[in-house]
């Protein structure tokens, strides 16, 4: 007789393990199946280890500004192996943390690869052994992996995905990053800061294309100033692998062809959902463009089967996956007052240098449909704390509905903005309007004062500029 659960979650990434915790909290008998390591890409190969790497590059950057702060030092060097080792340790620590959380919430962790078998049943394969489990509810959270194109496949030595780029054995002197989304730009930032010659190729006409136009323009300038070469409206036609280098053929929108020889290439051209080998087709689950189709409740249309996170639609962010995990757990448990995910309230963060963070609509999207808006902007140079920190690059921008005062979007670039954006996210979620934000008191001296100023600026009345 197969062991049976209220909920079985397939995939132990942020969508899956958070769903499991919430199920546990709600008293559901829960199991989670993971084929590799709990924590998924986020903890093992994504968000967390890259933040550890970027912290190292940030320190490297500061070490080169010691004089400015009254220090001196010579013979500053870095040990790539140690940087990577620290990053792996950070990941390992958190994976252990998730294991502990599963235990605390009485979630059974099943090691192996799961496949759907008819309604309410799965099999888990491990070392050639197959075990059957049954569950009233199944949550698919198998995540995604890097997208590759024909001719643009990663090999792990010369042509990397994020997975390889995170654990370099030797430091590449030159690097081509294909794609200027969050993943591409973060690696470009890391390697550039540590001294690599970095070229970024973006098919669209601006870097960080999901961000507000002004943010993209500011970022492009900042990256160029750091010595990064940005080629927008450009595609990679061909990658020719040499002994220890790659020659890329690039084609710009106007047809200009050029070649570029680099030590390594990082592919960061989006993701594809892990939809294979889990029995989706047999179960009758609809897949479109490598992602599972779900409704606003993460329901697949097959009764009792849900899907969350990168496996389903965008934005492909860990915190979005976590939120969906919670929604599904609460819906299964019959919690009342659960609301569907509103993607306009999902913040996005990119940990390049300078950092980028945003929530809601860009200015141009906000204007679509003829809506009257008012936008406010405040630069880091007008903020005392920013000057004291020596971080005067960047700005904060707000976009409001001119009539209702709704905070439609907020966009930031500069030091620590990834820690600031939650303020605007809360405001948006609570449906605060410009009036409430205007009269909120922001502590002095902090970077957050810029958030207040950007609100006031939307009414043409910033205080410190």
């Amino acid at each position, binding site marked *: 007789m197969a062991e049976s659960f209220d909920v079985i979650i397939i995939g132990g990434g942020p969508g899956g393990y958070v769903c499991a915790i919430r199920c546990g909290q709600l008293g559901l008998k829960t199991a989670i199946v993971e084929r590799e390591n709990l924590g998924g890409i986020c903890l093992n190969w994504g968000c967390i280890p890259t933040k550890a790497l970027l912290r190292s590059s940030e320190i490297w950057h500061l070490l080169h500004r010691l004089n400015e702060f009254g220090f001196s030092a010579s013979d500053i060097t870095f040990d790539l192996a140690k940087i990577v080792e620290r990053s792996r340790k950070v990941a390992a620590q958190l994976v252990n943390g998730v294991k502990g959380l599963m235990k605390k919430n009485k979630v059974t962790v099943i090691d192996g690869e799961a496949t759907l078998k008819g*309604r*309410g049943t799965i099999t888990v394969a491990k070392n050639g052994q197959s075990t059957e489990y049954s569950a*009233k*509810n199944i949550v698919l959270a198998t995540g995604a992996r890097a997208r590759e194109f024909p001719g643009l496949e990663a090999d792990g030595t010369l042509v990397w995905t994020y997975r390889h780029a995170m654990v370099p054995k030797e430091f590449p002197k030159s690097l081509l990053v294909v794609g200027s989304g969050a993943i591409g730009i973060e690696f470009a930032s890391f390697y550039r800061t540590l001294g690599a010659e970095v070229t970024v190729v973006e098919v669209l006409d601006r870097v960080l294309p999901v961000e507000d136009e002004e943010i993209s323009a500011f970022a492009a300038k900042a990256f160029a100033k750091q010595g990064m070469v940005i080629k927008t409206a450009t595609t990679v036609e061909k990658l020719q692998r040499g002994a220890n280098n790659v020659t890329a053929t690039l084609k710009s929108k106007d047809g200009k062809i050029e070649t570029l020889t680099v030590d390594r290439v990082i592919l960061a051209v989006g993701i594809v959902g892990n939809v294979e080998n889990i029995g989706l087709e047999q179960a009758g689950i609809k897949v479109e463009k490598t992602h599972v189709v779900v409704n606003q*409740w993460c*329901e697949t249309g097959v*009764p*009792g089967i849900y899907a969350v996170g990168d496996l389903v639609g965008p934005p492909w962010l860990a915190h979005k996956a976590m939120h969906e995990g919670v929604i599904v757990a609460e*819906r*299964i*448990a*019959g*919690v*009342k*007052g*659960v*609301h*569907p995910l509103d993607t306009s309230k999902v913040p996005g963060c990119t940990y390049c240098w300078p950092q980028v963070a945003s929530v809601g609509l860009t200015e141009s999207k906000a204007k679509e449909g003829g809506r009257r808006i008012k936008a406010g902007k405040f630069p880091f140079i007008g903020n005392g704390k920013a000057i004291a920190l020596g971080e005067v690059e960047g700005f904060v921008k707000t976009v409001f509905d001119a*009539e*209702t*005062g*709704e905070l439609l979007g907020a966009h930031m670039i500069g030091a620590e903005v990834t820690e600031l954006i939650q303020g605007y996210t809360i405001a948006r979620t*609570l*449906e*605060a*309007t410009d*009036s*409430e934000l205007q009269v909120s008191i922001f502590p002095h001296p902090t970077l957050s004062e810029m958030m207040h100023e950007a609100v006031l600026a939307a009414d043409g009345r910033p205080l410190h500029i």
Partner: protein
Amino acid sequence: MSTQILMPALSPTMEEGKLAKWHVKEGDVVKAGDILAEIETDKATMEFEAIDEGRIGKILIPEGAEGIKVNVPIAVLETEDGEPAPQDIPATMQAIREALAPASPAQKIPSPLVGDAAPKARVGIEAPAAPAAPRSGNGAAAPHTEQRLFASPLAKRIAERDGIDIASVHGSGPRGRIVKADVEAAAKGGVPKPAPPREEQTPAKPVAAPEAHAVSAGLAPLPDARLFYKEGEYEAVPNDSMRKAIARRLTSAKSLIPHYYLTIDCDIGALMQLRARLNEKSPKAEGAYKLSINDFVIKAAAMALMKHPDVNASWTEAAILKHKHADIGIAVDLNPGLITPIVFKAEAKGLIEISNEIKSLAERAKAKKLKPQEYEGGAFSISNLGMFGIKEFTAIINPPQSAILAVGAGEERAVIRDGKVIAATIMSVTMSCDHRVIDGATGARYLQTLKIYVEEPASMLL
């Protein structure tokens, strides 16, 4: 063949109710007229009878479930050949889900739907989270019937811009908070922009919309009392549906009806003597009666209404409805709570008939056995607190009525007559009038007549 048994509307204004008790269980055979269940509204508990014969196939709504909307399937009745068609159950579930959707998240509906089978669970849990339907009437348990209005700043701004009365919007946010989406849905769904005074508005009688809007828009929410007292220093007694109905109706009545008050003293010396004489003549056994002062007051009020049809009226936006009979509501103390059953055509009834009818109404009111048609309507009410020694007081008009008479105690008072102080038994009565219907002098003329009828009951025979 199987048919659905639907939640009955036991009165014209009933929108939802509580399934207080099932008298049958699954598998029971019933015939027409058998009592299936007891349905409780905020006013009364009523028995619900079977119309067809058959066997109870499935009970869909469990005993004790509250806020069940009218016409929601509550059970499946199998007629003739037994088993329900298999597709009936999902369809029924769907109907329930849709019907339950607008219900307040605060309501505890022991859902029969969150079961062990996955498809059922899916249906069941969808209910509370479905987008809030615009409220057309009084969803009794919706959070915004509380004094304090919970709405996001943005929701308030949009409501203000679009002229939507936010108090009439159903809140879908945390703890019933009204959010942007609710206001937008309300705007699209054509929720009445001004807040209609809820229960007193029957479809045929549209109520003064502009006034309603003006008043509700200007009201500042009252603070939550819990903010002022330490937890543990009080006992929180949950409001039952009658308490909620009283709060809702009287808040809107007092807020929306322009009340004014007229007081007059009646010398009831002659009435007391007459009453004593008549009561003495009561047969000892069959047909025994005991007339109260109030019975005389009711008769007098009814007779005066016939003489002053301007008072015997109800307000609507388009017209004043002048009633042809004197239907008089009598406030009955249920301790706790109260209800106002109606003595219909009191002008045509004798004192004994009135007296007996009130006794019967009061008994059945206390047993929660009144039928809606026994307490809905009327144009005039009488509330008597004289038995508690209350000298005089003012009452709140019970819409759609236009006046209510507050009757104090008949007591010996020193009065001056012909320059001399003498003792007389005086009863003060205060009439609350809806100024939209009854002007000051109109009300005063009515009370003049009433005084004559009370002071000299024989004049009613003239």
